[in-house]
């Protein structure tokens, strides 16, 4: 008999409840149970960073956390980064402007990670940003567009 639990989370401001097998990762729960497929599973062993989401504001690997551990927590996924549907957050807009994505698969994890990092480190320079995203693998861009976007976003957020 599968071990299941009822899990209630607030995702992108909305309360969601579902019953899951306890072995289900938070990432699979978001993607396949709640159908928020913006979060991507790239390695399922915690290295690539594509599945990064914010749990109570902290960037964490959703493949390394069980869905049941998120019970009662507040979660932000890439779908919830912009203030309103049809708009982009300053960081998302900077990714667009600086060609910070190609295939788009690592992008959700880059955005969630950098959203948290720039919030906590608004004066970050290039070296800090490169270290911050060293836990997020991108095979397409060579990282430069991502770094440029983060630097630009940090600047615009400070000015804004």
């Amino acid at each position: 008999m599968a071990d299941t639990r009822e899990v209630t989370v607030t995702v992108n401001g909305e309360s969601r409840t579902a019953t899951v097998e306890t072995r289900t990762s938070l990432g699979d729960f978001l993607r396949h149970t709640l159908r928020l497929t913006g979060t991507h599973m790239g390695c399922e062993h915690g290295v690539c960073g594509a599945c990064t989401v914010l749990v109570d504001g902290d960037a964490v690997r959703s493949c390394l956390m069980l869905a049941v551990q998120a019970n009662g927590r507040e979660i932000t996924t890439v779908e919830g980064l912009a203030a309103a549907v049809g708009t982009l957050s300053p960081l998302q807009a900077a990714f667009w402007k600086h060609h910070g994505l190609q295939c788009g698969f690592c992008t959700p994890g880059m955005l969630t990670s950098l959203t948290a990092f720039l919030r906590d480190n608004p004066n970050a320079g290039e070296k800090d940003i490169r270290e911050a995203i060293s836990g997020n693998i991108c095979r397409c861009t060579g990282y430069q567009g991502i770094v440029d976007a983060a630097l630009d976003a940090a600047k615009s957020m400070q000015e804004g």
Partner: protein
Amino acid sequence: MVVRYLGAEVQRMEDPRLLTGHGRYVDDMTMEGMLHAAFLRASHAHAKIRAIDTSRAAQLPGVHRVFTHADLGPKYGHRMNQLYPAPVIEVNKTQYPLSKDEVCYVGEAVAVVVADSRAIAEDAVALIDVDYEVLPAVVNIMNALEDGAPLAHADTSSNLMGRMRSQFGDIDDAFAKADHVFQAAFMQHRGGCHSMETRGCIGRDDPWGDGLTLWTSAQSPYLIRRALATWLGEPEERVRVVAPDVGGGFGPKAGFYPEEIVIPLLARFMERPVKWIEDRREHFMSTTTQRDQHWNLEVACTSEGKILGLRGKVTHENGAYIPYGILLPNSSLTPLPGAYAIPAVDVGVDIVFTNTVPNSPVRGAGRPCGIYAVERMIQTVSRNLGIDPAEVRRRNYVRPEQMPYETGATLRGGAKCVYDSGDYEALLEKALELADYAGFKERQAAARAEGRYLGIGVSSCIEDTGMGPYEGTTVRVEASGKVAVRTGAASQGQGHHTMIAMIVAENLGVSPEDILFESADTGKFPHGVGTIGSRVAANVGPSAFDAATKVREKALRLAAEVLEASEADLDIEDGVVRVNGAPDLSITLGELAIKLSPASAMRVPAGFDPLLEATSYDGSSGSPIACGSNVAEVEVDVGTGEVRVLRYSVAHDCGVMINPMIVHGQIVGGVVHGIGNALFERMIYDDQGQPLTTNYGEYLLPLASEMPRVDVTHMETPSPLNSLGVKGAGEGGTIPAAAAVVAAIENALTEFGVEIDYYPVDPQYLTGLIDRGAAQAAE
């Protein structure tokens, strides 16, 4: 006034969707009644299968069925197709979709479980018992052809898959009249693709409706459609293959895999959609990679460093099966004269089987290997003659006035390789300037005074891009005025939507936002080829341009009749045809489209075909040859052997740039892939053929923290081979990178006499060379 898009840094049309989490990758899709599959994969590199017991797995709650080769039945019991048959293939081994009685690499699909969820399917896989008779495995290409070496396949007599040779000019004469002959031998290792999205597919079979549909994370959906239909013995029209958003390709997704047969078959057997998503461990074991090539070359040259000839032998690792014909060894030989006018070449390749995952192109395919080989020989000449490496290159480049320059080598399709345009020396000078090559000696001396070791390395490359036959485009204006643009070319992040929208928008006088772009769906466009070999810009670019031109001409001809004006007085702006000087006289493209697709009983205007639509397959009349020169500046920590790339400069020429921002992204991403090859990425098998690097802690992909900022400058020498003057840009960053980095490391360690004969250059290997050099210096 015509709005210019071509050449502008237009922000990508793809991005808002992807940035907000609304992409649609294959694992994002779900279907009514969908089941999930997981594969049992061979745990031995080489073994006979005595028996498979699936009974325990089949009994697990939530499991629908378990399939082995035998369970697929005699109708589906044959080996996979050879996609690229070639006469040089002496032993034609393709695999069975599920192993029949012998497994030849770890990761080969042996059985598959269909269950309610992926997790249950994996539970059941663990319950399948396979009785193997383990056979000796061949892993190392250097002894695979020796007498008594284990055989990769039990029913063959040799591990030689085939031999090829690139031969032109009078090689004996070149070596006879040379002042010097130098030799170098080196191993090249390239890893896997590691697209951040793994492979994966969904099959659905609706025999009374749409037929068989396969959604798959792939670069060449049309190739898969043909291969799958051929394998099934069914018409292509009843097989639809769709590549939705694809999270990176880099070569290995351009082929046709066992899972792309098995999953649609399971959908057929189960009469329900079936999904399989490769996990990262499967990606390491079962997605094709590139791996080892050993080169042993001799170069004949004059005392001034003018190269007369190049000869030698290559041993190429093929892996266990042949999914891609001989594309990879072929592409290793094609670029052999590199950017240089080398009159004579004679290099042969032995292609050998090993009990490792089958081999396929990875970004650049064999080109990075061929270019690395040529560039290593330039370094060899430079070192032995004491001539600056940049100067040796200057003395050997193909010169602009020699264009078109026929090298003597042949392209994949068998055509002669002809360099169409470019100024290689000017490109080198731009790269050297960007890198402040002139100021390097001073930087190096200052660092040495602090006990730090800096080095600089140069490499130049050519790249045959834009291979045929075509990649067509249809442009159709619909009644709403929106423009539907369809092509076969699949995208894995290259920005095709943006690029094609820019071309169509500029030519047709509409806004790129009004273009509805669809691609990579065999149900929506009759035929396409695939996104490989930096071929899309030089094929879709011209076809999109031509189709848009035809639509424009048709619209203007019809508008001239409707508005009673001369075509010469008409212009299209933002989707509206206006008469110059008569601002009130106008008609929208949508209105013209309605006239050409009228309601019942109405007539299409006389002299016009229906629909405001055109299709073109215009492409390039040959392979446009892109070129580049790269300069790497590195620091080596002799205490640890660590290499840091401090600065990386690229001068690149891919002809006319459609969107320089996208080109820049391709170059930078490609360089970082190449640096990964040079320093980090190593797919290790033990001597039993067990893959050891099967996670991202052990297989080292380049990270932001170690990668340098890449400075890029361009020249735009138009290609004469297509209407836009474009050349491909997707692989030009990767191809020369390893050669530049390795040359820079050697330069940094000149006082230790370090000569590198292997990449990726890991720190342990490098400290070994440093210590040996230091010991020799001390003697």
